[in-house]
């Protein structure tokens, strides 16, 4: 047992390898990816920092239980192909997760090294392995089980749907993914901006599933083009619903229908899915604000603010009714936004939008807030300070205060049981709904959450669907 001690000493000498990034003042005006990725040398060096714990906290912290020490060890040994094979065993979207997972509260937050210093850069290494495979790999596919003759429809091609599709196709089932938009990827293509997750990477992940045999049908709005019950009539044996939250929440204050006020969903869909940042090279326009306010402080708000900056704003302000501590965005995203010149107006809440005679936004009236007692979410409730009204000029406002459950599919399927907010009731462990043969997971069950939690739900549901197809309900 002498050796591990010696090794530990050695590893302490290597500081965490910093992720190379575009300079803040340059990237704030372009849509290229911000972190540029580890080189081979950087990855191998960082991989040496991993202590290969016997009881790895990182794995326990991962919603899909990736064999983190395993894939890192393989990077250390420069066996990159084996490393990505290992990752694929638990995670069908490593290039995505390496980029957008909140590692600081999951795997890296539980890394033993985090107790005394910087954790192993698990996300950066995961991204490296996936990018290496994409750029240098053989394109060889993982093995597939013999066909079972069972058909599964996956509704929605976001992270949970793609996970279910990937898991079930290798188990030998016939899988079709139905996507309402004209491009697959769900929130990965319409929500997360190019500078955080290049769309070519999402396309490649989807293409990987297609090469495995998954059918992807776009322009299929389940609930409209085809109903859930019709899917069973068409011969599907099981259906997974991963349609996302998909209903924008607004402030419900006077003036909200002025021109120049958009939901973050609309703003980001124009920018990302429709690539409106390239207008007029593409045909979809996007409003260009000089003086932009983003309401909310989650990841979607940061994405909106940083997009507005890249589209040429002079000034972008995040307006949030609570304080910095309660901001729901990832710390890394808040830092990135600040570095790019986004300002924060905290403890501030708009009460009215103001416009001109042409119905265009010119500003808003805000109130200063202070924090009171904790509310249901456990966060201190913001309370308005009387008489603190002040005016804020703006010509574009992006409302990023969360989303609700889109009723399009659920309203047309009365035998799905919903909770009081309209989300689908599904078993936490299996994703089973109250309707036979139907599973659900991701934001349409939990409300807006993260990519990896949706993938975790997809993983559990895929296991349960497989059991059902082979054994029964």
């Amino acid at each position, binding site marked *: 047992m002498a050796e591990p001690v010696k090794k530990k000493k050695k590893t302490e000498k290597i500081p965490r390898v910093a992720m190379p990034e575009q300079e803040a003042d340059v990237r704030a005006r372009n849509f290229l990816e911000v972190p540029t990725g580890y080189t081979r040398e950087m990855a191998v060096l960082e991989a040496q920092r991993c202590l290969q714990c016997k009881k790895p906290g990182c794995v326990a912290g991962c919603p899909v239980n990736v064999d983190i020490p395993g894939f890192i060890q393989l990077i250390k040994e420069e066996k990159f192909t084996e490393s990505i094979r290992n990752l694929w065993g638990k995670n069908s979207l490593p290039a995505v997760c390496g980029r957008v997972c909140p590692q600081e509260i999951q795997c890296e937050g539980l890394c033993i090294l985090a107790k005394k210093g910087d954790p192993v850069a698990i996300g950066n290494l995961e991204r490296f392995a996936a990018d290496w495979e994409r750029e240098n790999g053989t394109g060889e596919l993982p093995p597939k089980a013999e066909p079972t003759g069972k058909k599964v429809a996956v509704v929605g091609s976001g992270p949970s749907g793609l996970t279910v599709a990937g898991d079930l196709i290798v188990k030998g089932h016939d899988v079709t993914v139905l996507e309402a938009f004209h491009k697959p990827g769900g929130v990965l293509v319409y929500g997360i901006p190019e500078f955080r997750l290049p769309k070519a990477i999402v396309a490649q992940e989807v293409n990987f599933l297609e090469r495995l045999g998954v059918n992807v049908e776009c322009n*299929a*709005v389940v609930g409209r083009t*085809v109903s859930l019950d019709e899917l069973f009539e068409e011969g599907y044996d099981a259906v997974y619903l991963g349609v996302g939250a998909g209903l924008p929440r*607004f402030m419900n204050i006077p003036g909200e229908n002025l021109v120049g006020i958009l939901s973050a969903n609309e703003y980001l869909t124009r920018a990302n899915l429709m690539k409106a940042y390239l*207008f*007029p090279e593409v*045909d979809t*326009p996007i409003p260009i604000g000089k003086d932009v306010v983003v309401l909310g402080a989650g990841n979607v708000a940061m994405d909106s603010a940083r997009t507005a900056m890249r589209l040429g704003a002079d000034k972008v302000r995040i307006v949030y009714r609570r304080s910095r501590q309660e901001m729901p965005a990832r710390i890394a995203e808040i830092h990135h936004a600040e570095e790019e010149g986004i300002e924060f107006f905290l403890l501030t809440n708009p009460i009215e939008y103001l416009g001109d005679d042409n119905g265009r936004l010119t500003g808003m009236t805000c109130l200063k807030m202070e924090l009171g007692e904790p509310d249901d979410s456990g966060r201190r409730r913001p309370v308005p300070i009387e008489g603190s009204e002040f005016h804020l000029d703006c010509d574009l406002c992006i409302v990023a205060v969360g989303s609700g459950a889109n009723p399009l599919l659920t309203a047309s399927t009365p035998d799905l049981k919903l909770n009081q907010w309209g989300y689908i009731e599904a078993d936490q462990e299996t994703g089973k709904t109250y309707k036979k043969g139907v599973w659900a997971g991701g934001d349409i069950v939990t409300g807006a959450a993260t990519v990896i939690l949706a993938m975790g739900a997809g993983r559990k549901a895929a296991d349960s669907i497989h059991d059902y197809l082979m054994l029964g309900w």
Partner: protein
Amino acid sequence: MFKIVNREEMSDGTVVLNDIEAPMIARKAKPGQFVILKANEAGERIPLTMAETDPEKGTVTVIYQVVGKSTALFKTLQVGDSYQDVIGPLGKATHIEKVGNVICVGGGTGIAVLHPITRALKEIGNHVTCIIGARTKDLLILEDRMKDASHELHVCTDDGSYGHHGFVTDVLKEVLEKGETQQAVAIGPVPMMKFVSLMTKEYNVPTLVSLNPIMVDGTGMCGGCRVSVGGHTKFACVDGPEFDAHKVDFDELMLRLQAYCEDEQSCYNDFCTIRDSK
């Protein structure tokens, strides 16, 4: 890909009809519902209410006016060409009910949308009076089909080149004066719908309008298509596209439709310059 199997030009080439192969949509679509079309990879998602569907042939029909870059691009598509994407059927179907005497008022390409609704209202047993209008005779569309779909057809032109000289509201007033109308449907340019609505409100005749605001996804996800109806914000794509005309804030709708007018104009001009230089 969604192939165009039939194409007609109307109104001096400013209006185009396409029958498009979309069997899944044709099977499901009902009067009043819309589709979203996207011509190519760089194209915009354009919502158009269907003028006709043929479940047996598996086709849907759209009739659009060329007003900007995207519709000008649509116009370049010939029989045998395809739209890259067609999504639908979206929105709620028209509630068709036997109420007695119904007036259907249509203007511009709104007449195309009004046609299947008019026909359905007649088929269910209503007495249907139809009033359609255009700026001038050459711009009028679907007169014969509207004649077949209704019991009584009135045609108006702003310049008097055909039918009644004046607006649809002139004839509407005469019909409403008889006091026998139980319901009205108005589909056309927003100002037309606004003035029809103001008039039917005077006569207490419930009125439906079909709205076509700016939208992106058409499934309730973006909220771009929000309209004020009775003081509440509604999404035209999922709560509509049809609403109680007497509750719609038409002035707000008109302002919201102007949101991208400068971008649209420059984009259209560039397209025309390139097209004409070829």
